[in-house]
């Protein structure tokens, strides 16, 4: 993470030039990866950092997307207004759901979030006059940044979403290992003990839930801006499951893991399903291989490789020289 100031901007620059080299299809695919990347990043705050595994995160995606879409249709096509509407809706929903679901722990929390998101789903599904029911909300105007700048070209949409994505990633990078971020990590490790050292864990869990939910709403509104539609399928529990898998496959609790996971799943799904009908089987097999051979996700693999190639000498020393870890006696003997 220390070298991010160099690597980050470089990566950003590469991404800026991507549309000049890749066909529009890949630009669109990348845009989608960024959107789902934000979604996965938001869930990672809950799952990877605070240790609360949620199976209902799609509710916030949906809240953000529907609010943004409805705002675009009924109020104004201004994109910032749509996003604001999406953020607000997701925020409010997160406050409500967080209030009681954070009281439960572990598997109960998972199921409670699932229940809440299914309730959100069925509200969206059954409120046909507003949401279009199972057919979804369609015909949402393209990006309009105000002052008559309408981004109807997919490449501009790409840039817009790239910028938003970069900002989110930058902030999350700061947040992940900040003092507040480490409070959340502490809760993941041992909530009871965190209380005993003076943290109101219920409050922090709620904060975590609200941040994650609101960011989830952001990705939902970006989705609407990008695709021009939203349907209940994106709010169904399977959508929550798939973002959870992105986080886990990529590497929970790491910065890049969720993004890599999102890219991996999107690419895998798009490419494999074009070439063979039984793509679910392949994805399933990939999961299994990951769990058994790379339990820390893709980021775990990278780290292992890095360790293997970058510091092979150090490892050998470790193995050869039988230094037992505790060598505190030296300090002791001095005194």
């Amino acid at each position, binding site marked *: 993470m220390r070298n991010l100031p160099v690597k980050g901007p470089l990566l950003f620059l590469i991404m800026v030039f991507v549309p000049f080299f890749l066909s529009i299809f890949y630009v669109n695919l990348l845009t989608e990866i960024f959107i789902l990347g934000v979604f996965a990043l938001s869930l990672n705050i809950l799952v990877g950092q605070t240790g609360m595994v949620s199976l209902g995160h799609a509710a916030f995606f949906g809240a953000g997307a529907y609010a943004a879409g409805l705002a675009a249709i009924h109020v104004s096509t201004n994109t910032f207004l749509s996003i604001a509407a999406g953020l607000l809706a997701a925020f409010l929903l997160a406050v409500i759901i967080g209030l009681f679901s954070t009281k439960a722990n572990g598997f109960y929390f998972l199921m409670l979030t699932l229940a809440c998101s299914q309730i959100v789903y069925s509200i969206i599904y059954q409120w046909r006059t507003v949401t279009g029911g199972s057919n979804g909300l369609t015909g949402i105007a393209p990006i309009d940044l105000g002052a008559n700048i309408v981004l109807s070209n997919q490449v501009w949409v790409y840039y817009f979403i790239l910028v938003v994505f970069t900002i989110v990633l930058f902030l999350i990078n700061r947040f992940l290992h900040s003092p507040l971020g480490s409070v959340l990590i502490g809760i993941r490790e041992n909530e009871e003990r965190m209380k005993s050292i003076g943290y109101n864990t219920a409050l922090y869990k709620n904060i975590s839930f609200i941040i994650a939910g609101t960011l989830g709403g952001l990705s939902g509104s970006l989705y609407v801006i990008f695709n021009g539609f939203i349907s209940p399928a994106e709010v169904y529990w399977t959508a929550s499951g798939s973002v959870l898998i992105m986080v886990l496959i990529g590497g929970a609790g790491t910065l890049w893991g969720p993004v890599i996971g999102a890219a991996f799943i999107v690419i895998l799904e798009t490419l494999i399903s074009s070439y063979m009908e039984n793509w679910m089987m392949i994805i399933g097999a990939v999961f299994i291989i990951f769990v058994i051979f790379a339990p820390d996700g893709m980021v775990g693999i990278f780290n292992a490789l890095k360790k293997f190639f970058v510091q092979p000498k150090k*490892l050998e020393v*470790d*193995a050869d020289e*039988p*230094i*037992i*870890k*505790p*060598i*505190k*006696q030296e300090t*002791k*003997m001095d005194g």
Partner: protein
Amino acid sequence: MLSLKDVHSYYGASHILQGVNLEVKKGSAAVLLGRNGMGKTTAIHSIIGFVTKKEGEISFEGENVINLKSHQIARKGIGIVPQGRRIFTNLSVKENLTVFANQEQGGWDLEKVYKLFPRLKEREKSHAGNLSGGEQSMLSIGRALMRNPKILLLDEPTEGLSPLMVGEVMEVIVKLKEAGMSMLLVEQNIATALSIADDVYIINKGRIVYHDRPEELKKNMDIAYHHLAIS
């Protein structure tokens, strides 16, 4: 009865035990002393098979058990009172005692354990997780006794026990020894340890740095103090 020859153990890449040699003779008590973090628990865990990455020879009644699985080792007649007690918190006190009991070769049964620790009988139906620290220690000892092992591995069994209880447990240990039970005891309190030991080992950074009979050690406590860094 039990002997370790040049045992090396690892946690991942860290090499903890670095050639430990140690022997427990039949019907005797060997005591393992050492400061915190020197490898006492690792030695015990290597014997019972909780540590899997290890080399060397651990022979029990003439058979090398170093490559066996925990449950196989335990079934050979090795009982353990682990550090931190590790009772089954979601079982009742009685279940903790009876579920793993091995009554085939007589000796200890529920009644006897209850007689030794009346407190456990009072709490018989409680969730073991609700017991006080000392009560959990008693339960852990009782659980090991119920297996009627040939050798007992005791990792700081008196931790958290009141002085009265420490006395009683020590008495039991002495009686067990008289009845022919062998044991390997890890203990922090030197006085307590010496009072029942037949052999004393001191471990430092994963190596046995001292071994003698307690009488010899008592004659020259400086050595012990030196190895244990007591000034």
